[in-house]
């Protein structure tokens, strides 16, 4: 009598335990470990492995960590390493081409991604001038990191800095002229 009652309870308990175990397996996120080496090339290999193992949502963090590692050993070749990493990410479907371009050009190109736009300055840039300046300023910080601290491209960074100042000056004058219509 007693055994007949105990048996289904025990069975039910084990079924529940198994279900809980399976559920926990299904929701456990991958560890998404940070690269453990200070060598950029090796770090990129580690990051690529993590990204392919379900850590694609951590792409921003990994990119930032790779930049930090590269800052520890700055050299012009780093530019190529980042470009190749981004092309690989695009090929793996982790990033769209546009995203890959933005990641690269924000950090390693003199030109400002913040100045993308299909409409004329009077109608597009001027009404949101402050936002444009703010985005350019942020991007200049990124370029300082990518061009100057990672790639040792001093000239590139100074050109970007000069461009930032010139755009600000010319846009200021242009927008004043647009507003005086």
């Amino acid at each position, binding site marked *: 009598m007693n055994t007949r009652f105990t048996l289904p309870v025990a069975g039910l308990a084990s079924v529940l335990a198994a279900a809980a175990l399976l559920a926990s397996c299904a929701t456990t996120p991958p560890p998404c470990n940070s690269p453990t080496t200070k060598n950029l090339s090796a770090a990129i290999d580690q990051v690529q492995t993590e990204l392919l193992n379900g850590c694609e949502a951590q792409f921003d963090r990994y990119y930032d960590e790779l930049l930090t590692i590269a800052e520890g050993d700055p050299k012009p070749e780093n530019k190529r390493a980042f*470009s190749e990493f981004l*092309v690989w990410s695009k090929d793996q479907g982790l990033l769209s081409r546009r995203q890959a371009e933005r990641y690269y050009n924000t950090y390693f190109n003199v030109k400002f991604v913040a100045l993308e736009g299909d409409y004329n300055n009077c109608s597009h840039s*001027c009404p949101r001038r402050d936002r444009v300046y703010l985005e350019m300023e942020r991007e200049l910080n990124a370029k300082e990191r990518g061009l100057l601290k990672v790639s040792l491209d*001093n*000239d*590139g960074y100074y050109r970007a800095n000069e461009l930032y100042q010139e755009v600000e000056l010319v846009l200021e004058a242009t927008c*004043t*002229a647009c507003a005086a*219509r």
Partner: protein
Amino acid sequence: MNWNPERIPAAALLACLALASADAALAATVSNKPDGPTIRLFPTTVVEDLRQTSTVAREMETGLQEVIGRLDQQQQLYIDSKCEGAEDDPGCQRMAKQLGATYLEMLAIMEERLPDMEHTVNNTRLSLEKRLRSELGNKMTPWMLQETLLAGAPEGKTAPAPKLRGRSGMRLSERFKQYYQLVSTSGSRSDQSLAVLAADVYLDMEETSLLIARTREEIARATVMEQVNQSFGIVTPEMMEVVGGVKSILFGETGSDIQIAGPPPAQVEQAYTSPLQY
């Protein structure tokens, strides 16, 4: 905005004198270019307006320079005679009156020249305004503007561009030199130089227009105040400030902008171009 009427003449003068160098350089930029600008920022009418402004500004500058020289001498004499703190001394009062009279002379020159200056500055400002709105405002996207500003500057070889804005405290002849340097390198980056120059001059003109208008409103009051001071033989701190300001504009005596050395130029090893690069 705090507006000290007695300081207006110095501020206006600063802007006016800056114009003299700016427009002379611009006229030269355009005439020195064999191909002509791709962006039509400086058609003949604008260049002509600039030339006219230059003439008027130079006349004003010349007229003021002599008075400033006298003010300088009188001020030095006043200081050397230890008149500060000895205002009751009859000799010092006489010197203060002479100084005040020269100051009034300076105000009178400005009053006489300012209407012409205002007219030509406004003409130039309006012409430039129209060109900037049309060429850079309506015909260009922000991306095109960026490409224009970058065009002509070869990668990895940036010529140190002269600082355009904020010319106060710099010797007048140095300003001319800077503009001429810009003109001499403009062949390799024409549109960029033209766009930046046009923007720079236009913003200067905006400020100048405003300053001239305000100066004209206040100059009569400043003159009356100085005439009152004359009867007491007082050298006011404001007057000394104006004189000091004008001196700094003409002779660049306040050059206190300490320049910190920039980092050394990078090694030329930037041949790599990413397939992701714009």
